[in-house]
């Protein structure tokens, strides 16, 4: 069956409109780009800024050290993300337990989320990396492990609340359906509530992981050299800020895939809702 003249006309009109909007977008992007370049490079101090922030020689020289530092960031991110997600989920589950036996557990879990969401990360870091070793106990782990633990403690407080929001967003009728089939509370959580809850809060969970990626570098306050700290050391030697730009670009590149995944998951979740 062939389309009616009216439908053909509609299709032709839409094609024309699409072409037009692509051309307009290209033109406006070009104009804005040229304006930005002219404004920045035409500024009176542009040459001095270029020398101290965008020196190719300095960039090349600092790159190996900054990369070494970034490797530390990546390793820390990997283990801290797993640790914080796991601990966060456990705390969220403890907060949802009902019954008088679990009162102290609930109280502890609630206190935990209140305390570590309120306490600045840097203070937790100092207490863990400088305070704890001061006790001179046997078998004290390395500064890196202690710093990582501080990150896990702080971030699990946030992630626990995200998980809890997800758990509470599952409609009570789902619980009723599961319990009426004879599933226990634990089975209901595991097979019915959590799968739905985690899917729903995946975007904010990943969002917090992106934030964690930038905060893992703070362990350098206690000694270990991450990418930003490596850049700082180079800058202190040369009085040239290019290493910071190098580190910054690497951080953005590292975050890009994680952010892309977050966007994709969010989009998929939105599609599912409709």
């Amino acid at each position: 069956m062939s389309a009616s003249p009216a439908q053909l006309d509609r299709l032709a009109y839409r094609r024309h409109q699409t072409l037009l909007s692509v051309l307009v977008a290209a033109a406006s992007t070009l104009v804005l780009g040229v304006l930005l370049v002219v404004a920045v490079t035409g500024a009176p101090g542009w040459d001095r800024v270029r020398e101290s922030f965008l020196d190719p020689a300095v960039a090349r020289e600092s790159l190996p050290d900054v990369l070494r530092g970034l490797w530390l960031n990546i390793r820390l991110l990997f283990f801290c993300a797993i640790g914080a997600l796991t601990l966060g989920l456990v705390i969220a589950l403890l907060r949802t337990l009902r019954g008088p036996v679990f009162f102290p557990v609930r109280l502890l879990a609630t206190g935990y989320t209140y305390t570590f969401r309120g306490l600045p990360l840097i203070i937790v870091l100092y207490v863990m990396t400088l305070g704890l070793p001061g006790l001179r106990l046997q078998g004290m782990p390395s500064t890196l492990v202690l710093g990582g633990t501080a990150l896990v403690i702080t971030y699990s407080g946030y992630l626990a609340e995200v998980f809890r929001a997800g758990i509470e967003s599952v409609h009570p009728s789902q619980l009723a359906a599961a319990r009426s089939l004879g599933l226990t509370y634990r089975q209901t959580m595991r097979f019915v509530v959590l799968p739905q809850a985690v899917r729903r809060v995946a975007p904010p969970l990943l969002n917090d992981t992106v934030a964690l990626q930038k905060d893992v570098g703070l362990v350098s306050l206690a000694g270990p050299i991450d990418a930003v700290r490596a850049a700082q050391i180079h800058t202190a030697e040369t009085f040239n800020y290019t290493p910071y730009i190098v580190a910054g670009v690497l951080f953005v590149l590292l975050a890009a895939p994680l952010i892309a995944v977050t966007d994709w998951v969010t989009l998929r979740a939105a599609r599912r809702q409709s």
Partner: protein
Amino acid sequence: MTVLSCHGVRKVFGDQVVLDGLDLDVSEHEVVALIGASGSGKSTLLRCVNLLEELDDGTIHLDGEHITDPRVDPDKVRQRIGIVFQAYNLFPHMTVLENVTLAPVRVHGVPRTAARAQALEWLGRVGLADKAYAYPDRLSGGQQQRVAIVRALVNSPRLLLLDEVTSALDPELVGEVLSMIRDLKSDGVTMVLATHEMGFARQVADRVCFLDGGRVLEQGPPEQVFAEPAEARTRQFLSRIIEAGRL
């Protein structure tokens, strides 16, 4: 043989008395329809029987066992009772087959392959074999409700509770669910159903109970309750239903 026996059941929400000393006995293979105005406690009674609500007084026995004794494990009781809800309550993150096999595998310890075969057989019987691997949101309301009924039935419950199972359905989808319930009756499944479908209650029920003021005000065979109601409240209720064109 008496499967279900409710005695003096009382349930209060805040200062609203929903069930006020209700008595009800259901024999094996019997189909009992609960009718009554919205808020007369039909759904609440079903939820109490399934221990989803706690009683404020009275007792409920299932096969002679006192199930509202607080020392009884409610999970064990619910394994013997199936319930189907007005809004289906299928698990949206599971396929139809996963919905149906969850309880047999996790609760009743049926091997996975056996549970799948049994589920597929049931789905075939109700004409949903081709939907086994679909997610609930791809199904029509009538199909979802039939899956929900199958999900309850695969566990071979002693008692099946149906809570307004057609109230959320488009009129043209009501028939397929009702004909499924009619088949269950001929299979001898013991059922208690809360319903607004008077025509259906008349066809399928062995006994109709009219709930009013938190009690069974009047009960009997459908032809008696619908044709010559003894109580004024029942007559009033039925005449309103007739006015609305639902009988």
